[in-house]
């Protein structure tokens, strides 16, 4: 049954796969979060001008840039650098995980292995801290 939506913490997601973004947004909204999905890097930084999210979900494999470049740009910007970012990728390589950690990502999720339930658990775990 669809739960009643409440105004919750704001999550901004950068995901260029429409279908993946849509299903994650739907699930997170059912759980009470307010979610926006940007499909391009330009839209993502535009959204950040309108308001800072409580959490960013960032895909590493994007069409126009890599998620690492986006993360580096976030960390270079004095207004954005403290934002909490969870990165995810369908390639869970150790070197990617290490690089993301060095750039201050608070978690690294494997896109092809994680369920929506697990995604919600991870988001909750970080936002409830």
């Amino acid at each position, binding site marked *: *049954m669809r739960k009643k939506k409440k105004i919750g913490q704001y999550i901004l997601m950068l995901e260029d*796969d429409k279908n993946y973004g849509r*299903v*994650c947004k739907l*699930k997170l909204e059912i759980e009470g979060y307010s979610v926006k999905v940007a499909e391009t890097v330009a839209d993502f930084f535009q959204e950040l001008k309108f308001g800072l999210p409580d959490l960013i979900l960032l895909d590493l494999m994007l069409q126009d840039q890599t998620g690492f470049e986006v993360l580096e740009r976030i960390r270079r910007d004095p207004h954005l650098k403290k934002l909490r970012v969870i990165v995810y990728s*369908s390639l869970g390589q150790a070197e990617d995980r290490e690089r993301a950690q060095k750039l201050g990502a608070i978690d*690294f999720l494997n*896109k092809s292995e994680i369920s929506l339930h697990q995604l919600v658990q991870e988001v909750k775990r970080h936002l409830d801290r």
Partner: protein
Amino acid sequence: MASKNNLKDLEAIKNNFLMVASHQIKTPLNIIKLNLEMILNGDLGRVGKAVKNSLAEVAKMDTKALELINDFLNAAALGTRGQAKKTPAVDAIKIIKGIIEEMRILAKQYGVKINFIIEPKGLKAMIKADNFEEVVKNLLSNAIKYNRPGKTAEIKLEKLPGKLRLSVRDEGIGIAPADQKKLFGKFFRADNAMKHATDGSGLGLYIVKSYVDGWGGKISVASQKNQGTVFTIELPQKQAKI
């Protein structure tokens, strides 16, 4: 005849193709999985029992297809691998810790605790072992999936005279002696493993052994039914700076 450089280029093209193909095939299957998860969870409204049962089957098959693609791509990559590839040294401890972090969710799902032991303490292990991460992931996920709730999956890295030993132990269903001999073959799955977890491809340990052989290492298994299993890999000194 193809030159060394041409072969190298072909290897790079093949690897890139496998990576892109894997990503492209997995993406729609993954989205199917997530949408089914929402429907089955009742997130989108009530679902009748018959529809639910049928969709649960679809979800199971979708997960199986995803796992099979992973294993087939790994096995295909094995069959065409070039010889004498220069492998950079990697920090084994760092890689294992990363994998444990990644497997935290799976372990929680199965009610299994993961324990990592390093002997001696402070050991540094730089190893030249291509696909080391894949090997550890495979063994550790088995140690979680074929374990029992409340039990431990233990991963241990030890320095021994002239070699490095990695062992992965579970306290699970175990493997019958007759099955232990066939375990590293292609498409083999033990009867009790199929009953316990129906979705495996029977390629995981074949892939693991092929990688370990490629390192010049050795892999062995010791197991007692319903007591647990330990897989042990020994890596010669020349492949490891310890």
